[in-house]
Structures are given as C-alpha cells and as structure tokens.
C-alpha cells in the first residue's frame, strides 16, 4: 500500500478520532490521579451548570457560567450518562470541522492531496485536539461557521441565516462576519433558489485564466448600487438571522431573566479584565482599575479594532473565507482580553485559504509560524515568571504582549501580500425587471 492509498480522508478522520478518544481517556485518568487537572476549569463550569439545569434551576446559579443556556442543555447527559459526554461532543465537532474543510475545498475543485494536507493542518494541530479533549466548546462554534460557509456556497441562504443567528447567540464574536456576508450576497453572485457559481481553484500550472472578465465587477451607477444594496437575498438573510437571534434571546430572557442577559451577553461586551493575558490593554486596564476611563480613552481603544475590520471587509469581502480569517485574527489580536482558546476561531479557517496562498512552506510559511509561536512563547515565559515565580515583571509582560500584537499584524501582512483577494463567487446571469434572465 502506497502512502497515497493510506492517506485518504477516511483514514485521517479515523486516526484523529482514535487519538482524541485516547486523549479523553487519559484526561479522565489524570483528573483522578494527579494534582493538576487535564480538564479545563471551564468544562467543570459547564457540567455544573448543566446539572443545575437538569434539576430545573437556572444554569446561571453557577458562578462564572457565561455562555448560552444551549450549551448547558447540550451537556445535560453529563449528569446521567458520563461526565465526559461533553468532551465527546466537542471532539466530534472537531472531526466534523475537518470533514467540512474537506467538503468546502473539494467543492472548489482543489487537488486531492492539497485538500488532505489542509485537513491535516486542522486535525493534527496541537491547539485543536487539546481544546476539544480538555472540554472547551469552541469546536462547536467552528463547525457552525463552516456549515454557514457551505450553505452560502450552495445558495441555501435561509439555512445559512438560521445557523448564523444561532451562532451569534452562542458566541457573540461572529457578528463581525455580518457585513462581509451581506456584501457577498450580491444578486450578481448569489440568487435565491439558485446554486451560485464558484470560482474553482487553479494549480500553479494553470494560473493564466480567461475567467478574469467574468470575475471583474461591472460598472454600475449609483442607482444600481442602491437597488442591489437592498436585494431580496440580503434582506432575507438579515431578517431571518436577526429573527433567530432575538427569538433565542427572548426565550432565554423569559426563562432566566436578567441573569441570562448580564452573564451571557452584557459581560462579554463590557469585559475589562485587569488580570494578565495576551492583550496589549491588560496593563493599561490594571493601572486604571477603579478609575473611570474618559470617553476619549474608551474611543481610542475602540478605534484601531473598528478601522481594521472595516478596511478588511471593504478589501476582501468577495473572498469570503479569507475575509473571515483576517477579520478573526485582527479581532482576537486587538481585543481587550485574549485567551488561548480564541485562537481556534481562526485556526479552523486557515485550511480554507492555504490552497490559494502563494506562500511557500519553506521558508516564508515556516518563518510566519515561527514568528507567531515565538512571540507567544516569549509572552508565556514572562507570564510564568509573574504567576509561578512571583516576580514583578509586569512591564516586561506588557512589552511581550505588544510584540505579540506586532507579530500578529506582520503575519497578517504576509498573508495578504501572498494571497490577495481570490473571490469565491462567479458572476451569474442577472435577473432583469421582468424576472427573466439576461446575461451581462
């Protein structure tokens, strides 16, 4: 059996599944026999909240439970089946993300071996398998985001909108994807009831293409622009996703009242944690803790994030996976609080853009990885000295977080340089006023 024959999607998925099962079992053993737990503290919070919900009370009675009640609902079997049920669910979502990555790339006609390498970038990433097996719920969010992408690629706008409303309710950050999705739901590319035309991947040997004329945007005047801004697809997407979000919020507010709103929604919007984390703002927040920040200061911290998001959306919205990826990296990097589990949000999108990148693994790719990991390890070193050795290294830790932000920005710049914008949709035949079809 050649390496190629062994290496197909099924074998990769099975090997990953077995490996995750082994890790879950090891985690249970470590929890029982060693001082330091393998399981994340958050998982215990979810389990407690789920058992509270199973006994009929509010999951928010558990302190530090700051998620949607849907998560506690999913983990109810923790109480009567086995306490590792949640970990199985999260690892299964993990594998599902791998499968979705394969599906998306195959639909765009990426070469088989590139597909498999991309899938391996997710499934064999140490961040990925530890996050699911330690009991973090992020793989579920990643799976939902990828499913939304698949629905959009297949023209299923309503289904995409339903899942989008759900995922924003679950974790607030996907709201940053709202604008690019709306932009990409251009009636020239996506129409209700029709499957959109996708731009297929071309290997390096086929680079010069004749598709450029079809992909180029047509000139259109202000009137056309205004008309298409409120196209059927966009309005439908907005209404359905907004409706689902408010339905969920309303339902859980009715069940759990203000506790739900404060813990699950408002906490995330106003969170300013002075404790050390990767964010550049932590020391600033700590030094100003207890003092009211002036309006100017609040705006200044909000400005870089919003500017970067807007520029990225206006430049890359047509290349939806790449736009999502860049937006997520920027969102995490400029956020007031950064924890390691947030990195999974963009790791699930990375395999989707790699086939289009001109970056060679040697040495550009490896140096990007090295720079990003190096900046992180540098921060972790100072963090260790502060937290576990009790040395006052706040200034050095803060500088390490500045370096980390710059490293993130540099890696993003390299990606942008090597990729540019590869639109995902081809222009379709356009509807005319009478409902008939005419091509441009």
């Amino acid at each position, binding site marked *: 059996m050649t390496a190629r024959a062994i290496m197909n999607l099924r074998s990769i998925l099975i090997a990953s599944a077995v490996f995750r099962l082994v890790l879950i079992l090891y985690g249970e053993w470590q929890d029982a026999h060693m001082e330091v737990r393998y399981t994340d*503290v958050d998982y*215990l919070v979810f389990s407690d909240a789920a058992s509270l919900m199973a006994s009929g009370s509010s999951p928010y009675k558990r*302190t*530090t439970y700051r998620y949607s009640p849907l998560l506690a609902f999913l983990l109810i079997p923790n109480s009567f089946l086995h306490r590792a049920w949640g970990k199985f669910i999260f690892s299964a979502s993990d594998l599902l993300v791998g499968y979705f990555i394969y599906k998306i790339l195959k639909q765009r006609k990426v070469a088989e071996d590139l597909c498999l390498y991309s899938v391996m970038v997710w499934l064999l990433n140490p961040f990925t398998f530890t996050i699911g097996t330690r009991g973090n719920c992020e793989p579920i969010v990643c799976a939902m985001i990828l499913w939304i992408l698949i629905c959009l690629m297949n023209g299923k706008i309503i289904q995409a909108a339903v899942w989008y409303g759900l995922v924003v309710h679950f974790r607030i950050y996907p709201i940053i994807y709202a604008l690019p999705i709306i932009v990409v739901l251009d009636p020239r590319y996506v129409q209700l009831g029709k499957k959109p035309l996708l731009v297929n991947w071309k290997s390096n040997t086929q680079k010069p293409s004749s598709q450029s004329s079809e*992909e*180029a945007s047509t000139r259109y005047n202000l009137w056309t622009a205004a008309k298409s801004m409120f196209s059927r697809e966009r309005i439908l997407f907005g209404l359905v996703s907004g409706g689902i979000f408010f339905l969920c919020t309303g339902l859980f507010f009715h069940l759990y009242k203000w506790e739900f709103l404060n813990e699950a929604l408002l906490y995330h919007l106003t969170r300013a*944690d*002075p*404790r050390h984390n990767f964010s*550049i*703002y932590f*020391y*600033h927040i*700590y*030094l*100003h*803790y*207890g003092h009211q920040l002036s309006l100017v*200061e609040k705006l*200044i*911290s909000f400005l*870089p994030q919003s*500017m*970067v998001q807007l*520029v*990225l959306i206006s*430049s*890359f919205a*047509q*290349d939806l996976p790449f736009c999502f990826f*860049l937006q997520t990296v*920027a969102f995490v*990097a*400029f956020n007031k609080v950064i924890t390691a589990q947030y990195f999974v949000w963009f790791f699930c999108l990375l395999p989707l853009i790699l086939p289009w990148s001109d970056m060679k693994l040697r040495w550009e790719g490896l140096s990007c990885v090295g720079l990003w990991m190096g900046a992180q390890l540098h921060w972790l070193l100072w963090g260790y000295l*502060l*937290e*576990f*050795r*009790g*040395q*006052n*290294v*706040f*200034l050095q830790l*803060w500088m390490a977080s*500045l370096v980390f*932000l*710059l490293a*993130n*920005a*540099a890696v*993003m*710049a390299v990606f*942008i*340089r090597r990729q*540019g*914008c*590869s*639109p995902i949709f081809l222009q379709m035949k356009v509807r005319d006023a009478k409902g008939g079809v005419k091509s441009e």
Partner: protein
Amino acid sequence: MIVFREISPAEDFYYPIGSLISIFRNDKDDALLVPMRIVGWISRRSEMGVLWSFFFCCCFPVVALSISGDCSSLEDCILKSYFSKHEVLSDSSFQDLLQDELSKFSCKLLPGDPNPQLTLSGLGRRLIGEGSHRHLSSTIQLQIPPQSFPLQSCKLVMIERLPSGVFADPFELDHLLHHGAYAAIGVFGDTNLELPSVSSNRSAVEIHMNFKHNTSSGAMSALGIRIDLPLHARYAALHESGYSEVAFGTPDLLVSCSMEGSSEKRSCLIVPSSDSNKLRTDVVVWKIPCGIMSHTNVVSVVTFATAFVSTLVIVLPSVLYSKPR
C-alpha cells in the same frame, strides 16, 4: 457562595436518621435504605450542607450540652452563623461571636471528672510555594489526656480568617474534599475568583479534620496535625515598590466533640489552652507583585501607539494588494 460538605466514609450511610437507627439495629436493613436515601437527598437539597457527626458515643462520660439557637448541627454554626449576621468579615465582631458560641456550646463534663487539659503545644506556620498560588501549611501540636477525651468522636476545627488580597477557591477545596484530604471544609465571605483586591472583601475558611486513632498510652498523648490550605493571590492595589505584602494572622483552633445524650445530636466546643509564652507562632507574609503607578503614562501612550502602528501594518497591504487576481 457557600460550599460546605462532608466526605462520607466508606459505608456511605451517614444520614442522621440512618445513623440513629443503625445504633439500635446492628445491621443495615435494605428496606430502610430507600426512605433514608430520600431523606438524605432532601436534606442535601438545602444549601446548608449539614455536617453529620460520625458516631454516637456510647461509652464516654460526657453529658448533654445546653441547646439553643437555630442551628441544627454545631459544625456549620460558627462561620455560617457569623456570615448570616454580618456582610463583611471583621476580626473584632468575629471574636465576639466566637466567645458567644463557646459560652453556649462549651463541653461540660460529669462531676467528678478532672478538668481535661487539652493543650496546644505548638503551632507552626509556613507559606509553601512561589508565585500567585501557594499553600498555607499549619502544623498543630496538641497534648490530649486520652481517658477523658473521646478522640474518635472529636475533630479539630480550624478557622482561618484570610487577609484581603488572598482567596481560597471553593471548587478546588471541593476537589480536595473528594480526595479525602479533610473531613469537611468550607469557604465563607467573598469567594469571587476574578476581582482584584480593591473590589473584594475578605473571606474565611473553616476546616474540620478528624483525629487519627492514637495508640499511645499514658497520661498524655501528643497529636500532630498538618493542614495544607491552597490559596491564591488576588491582583493587588498599585504600589511604588512593585510588591504588596499580605500578612496572615493566627488561626482559631477549636476541638469539637459530638455528644451522647438527648435525641438531637449536638456537638460541643473546647478551646485548647496554650501557654502564650511558650507558644511561638511564625508570622507569615506573602509578597504579591503589583503594578507600579508611575508606569501609567508610559504604558498608556505606548499601548495606543503600538495599536496604531499595527493598524497601519494591516491596513496598508490590504489597500495595496486587494485587487482580485
């Protein structure tokens, strides 16, 4: 939030009614298990987490104590009753309450018995570890007259009033409880794990340890107990030196014995006497790193400047290289 539970010993059968019945019946009757489990389940539903004394002492010369107050069991009275009356932990009001409890629940002995001299002969205190997560280790030496003391029905109660600036994690203590480290342990007061010390109030930990069966004979037996309490530092208020010092006081040590007597189970309290001249308690100080006020301006300016530079690093290539290929 109050977490106050006791580990159940091997039999897993320590509901109060069950214990009472098991005294009169020497076997565990299966038919009684179900209703007693239901009673136990109902009693556990209440947030109090009632502690159960282990055995009725049948053969020790102790007498009923005076019962008053609304606590159904003594052990959860001390800190629980304190925090039911006070919002915030204050040393003076706690001492008053402790004196109150001792006068109400002091162990009384049968006339004719010599006054038991339970003595605290040594109290060693050490802070083990470096960094924000450490263990406060207390080594307690007691001298006990074995004849007058029903050791199996007594336990050591230690109340550690934590200074502001450190906290104990209730979930971690729960984990330790399940591993059998203590008979019972509970945290009271401000147990918020996330807020810095300027926004937090003090908390206190109450620990119950069983005395191990002690085989020495003779007039007095010595007992050594070591209690390890895992603690965490809160983010301290800013200080120019870069370190904030947190000093620990001495813990309150009591012995609680369960009594045979009236139909309701009660425990009584004894304070070990100590010779304050001979007893030398180590002063424990924890240096916690904290932010320095004079950094404020530099940090704010450089933070926002870096954010601005990073924005440019991302925005410029986006504008230059975003043409569709």
